[in-house]
């Protein structure tokens, strides 16, 4: 910020000359390069679309709300939400899902990123192929894989049958459903992680590798001591984005299993959605507030810790 303000002051000084005496205090106030009215449209937009709904949601989470009338019931919704039978299961599922997909995206994204930034034939084409699933609508991916993974007529199990393997009920086996969805999520999302890693790789100056080579470092040493540390910012970004994405993942799970069979692949977001569908608007708002707090409680410390590690070096 300081580097940005210094030149601005110089350019502004001729125009601001008439009010010269009042300058020192004003200088401290107007550290933004734009006048106040310039912020107004974005401010109104922010207040109307984000601030008011957020505050309203905290209020409605304390009410029994039918959309038609509202009754204030204190913290009853939160009590009820935490009594929800499948809540523990859905919490576990949410974390398993988020950490599994996030971890896999980091590892696979890193490997693919290293691979796709090396000198290989058809690099541009291969990069687009990896990124392509990111561009496809998640709902489309979900419906497609629901068909592919059908236990009896699905191409996946039919292919396995050719080799004499009896494929499992990918989405209908209660022990497997969540992991099947996670695998699809990783497939669909790893392209973005790869892209971020490729950007990180490109930013590493070649001199480091040349110097390491001169010192007789092996490929593994270069990777371990140059690539990996210098990719730290990229890793932070990938971890945070995929973890947030995983914690609040809903669309893919809903289209593929609907939280089922039974409740075995329910996550927090799908529990909340089902409450909303059932017309328990206050209760589901309370659930969303809980989801918000859970995501915040994980992401803020993690972000702080990861970024501090990045700054330390």
């Amino acid at each position, binding site marked *: 910020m300081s580097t940005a303000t210094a030149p601005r002051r110089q350019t502004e000084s001729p125009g601001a000359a008439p009010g010269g005496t009042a300058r020192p205090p004003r200088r401290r106030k107007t550290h933004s390069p734009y006048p106040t009215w310039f912020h107004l449209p974005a401010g109104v937009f922010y207040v109307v679309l984000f601030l008011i709904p957020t505050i309203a949601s905290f209020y409605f989470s304390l009410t029994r709300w*039918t959309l038609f009338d509202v009754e204030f019931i204190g913290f009853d919704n939160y009590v009820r939400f935490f009594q929800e039978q499948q809540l523990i299961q859905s919490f576990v599922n949410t974390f398993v899902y988020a950490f599994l997909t996030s971890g896999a995206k980091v590892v696979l994204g890193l490997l693919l990123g290293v691979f796709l930034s090396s000198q290989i034939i058809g690099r541009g084409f291969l990069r687009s192929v990896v990124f392509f699933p990111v561009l496809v609508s998640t709902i489309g991916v979900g419906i497609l894989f629901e068909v592919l993974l059908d236990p009896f007529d699905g191409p996946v199990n039919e292919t396995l049958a050719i080799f004499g393997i009896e494929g499992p009920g990918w989405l209908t086996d209660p022990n497997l459903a969540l992991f099947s969805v996670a695998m699809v999520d990783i497939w669909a999302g790893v392209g973005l992680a790869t892209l971020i890693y490729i950007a990180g790789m490109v930013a590493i100056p070649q001199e480091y590798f040349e110097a390491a080579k001169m010192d007789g470092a092996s490929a593994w040493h270069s990777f371990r001591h140059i690539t990996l540390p210098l990719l730290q910012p990229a890793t*932070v970004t990938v971890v945070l984005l995929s973890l*947030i994405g995983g914690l609040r993942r809903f669309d893919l799970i809903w289209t593929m299993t609907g939280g089922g069979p039974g409740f*075995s692949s329910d996550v927090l977001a799908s529990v909340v959605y089902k409450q909303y*569908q059932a017309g328990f608007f206050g209760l589901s708002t309370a659930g969303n507030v809980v989801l918000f707090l859970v995501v915040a409680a994980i992401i803020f410390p993690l972000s702080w810790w990861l970024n501090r590690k990045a700054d330390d070096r």
Partner: protein
Amino acid sequence: MVTRTSRRLLAVGASGLALSLALAGCSAGGDESTDGAVELSFLVDNSEALVETAGALADAFMEANDGITIEVETRPQGSDGDNVVKTRLATGDMADIFQYNSGALMQALSPDETLVDLSDEEWVDKLDPNFVSSVSTDNGMYGVPMGQSMAGAVLYNKDVYAELGLEIPTTWDEFIANAEAVKAAGDVAPIVQTYGDTWTSQLFVLGDFNNVTAADPDWAEAYTAGERKYVDEPAFAGFQHLQDAFDAGLFNEDFASATYADGVSMVATGAGAHYPMLTFAAGQLMTTDPDAADVVGAFALPGPDAETNGLTVWMPTNTTYIPRTTEGDKLEAAKKFMAFLMTPEACDIQSEANAPQGPYVIEGCSLPEDVPAMVADLQPYFDEGKTNLALEFLSPIKGPALEQIMVAVGSGITSAADGAAQYDEDVIKQAQQLGLEGW
């Protein structure tokens, strides 16, 4: 970094949402043209049968009434559709006429505040009193039926029964014995379950209500007051039956992924022997396997006692309502359409557009001669008075998670006892949301 990115994503999402809301607003508003003509929008769910019927009714009505046009719009089925209806009603953005369920689901729409009261219309006395009570609150009567009443029954393949020399069962034990006989005979799935469409799992409990009422006539009323529970007999039997059938390995191999359409087709082709289902499956059957119209029969879901064996009956679930947001000329036209739905002419159009699923609840309407066997099989129960209303027409309480709980019980994930206890927990939310006494 985090906050900035996620905020930007949020902003993109929010502007998209705002845009789509704006678009929805435009399309729903409709234009009243200058020459006095009225254009009505008519929102129905997107099931093939219903869209066809609604279209046929609208066409016939428009032919008879110059100057009124009716445009049929569609929405998703199931809970997603519930969402659409509730949200559009609450935001004053509802179509001029819409179709929705009767009974407990209608009660959740706050009908006194959102729907136009029809109790003063002259045709009201022509309706079956059971139906009237399923679309009424203390303050008004809100709906006109489309289609017919129906039963929650066991659809069965008559050819399979003839081949194995089986009799129609009147007790649960006889039913299981029949299913075991089918299993022993080989390829045919004794009982079809289709959890690819989770809602189909509920029949074991919902269709058993005749047996609950037989054992305890005051059950529904006491249930609404919070004095009866599903963990206790007689209501628990429905959960227990489902677990027993699963434990005995009587389900089709692909029960976890099969869909409703698969289920109907299995019982039609003889790949399955029994399929507990609502008789609205007649519509599906006539669309996909019309040749099997006389092959698929129906019998009441049996209970412990052959004496009280009878049908659990659903009032027409497809009911048309007028939202309060329909005013002036449009309201007049919409009421005219409602009156039209009450005529025998409209009933005949419905019989023709789609296979009837049970008797009509409108005086003067009768079924055609050539109804599918599963509908004809219901008539004796009606003639002998062996019918009881389903719980959802006697009590406003229906827990939203029943279908998932039943899938879990029917897949062996949860025991019947746990499932019933979970369902008792689940309905508390509904009862509290409705503001009932004693919860």
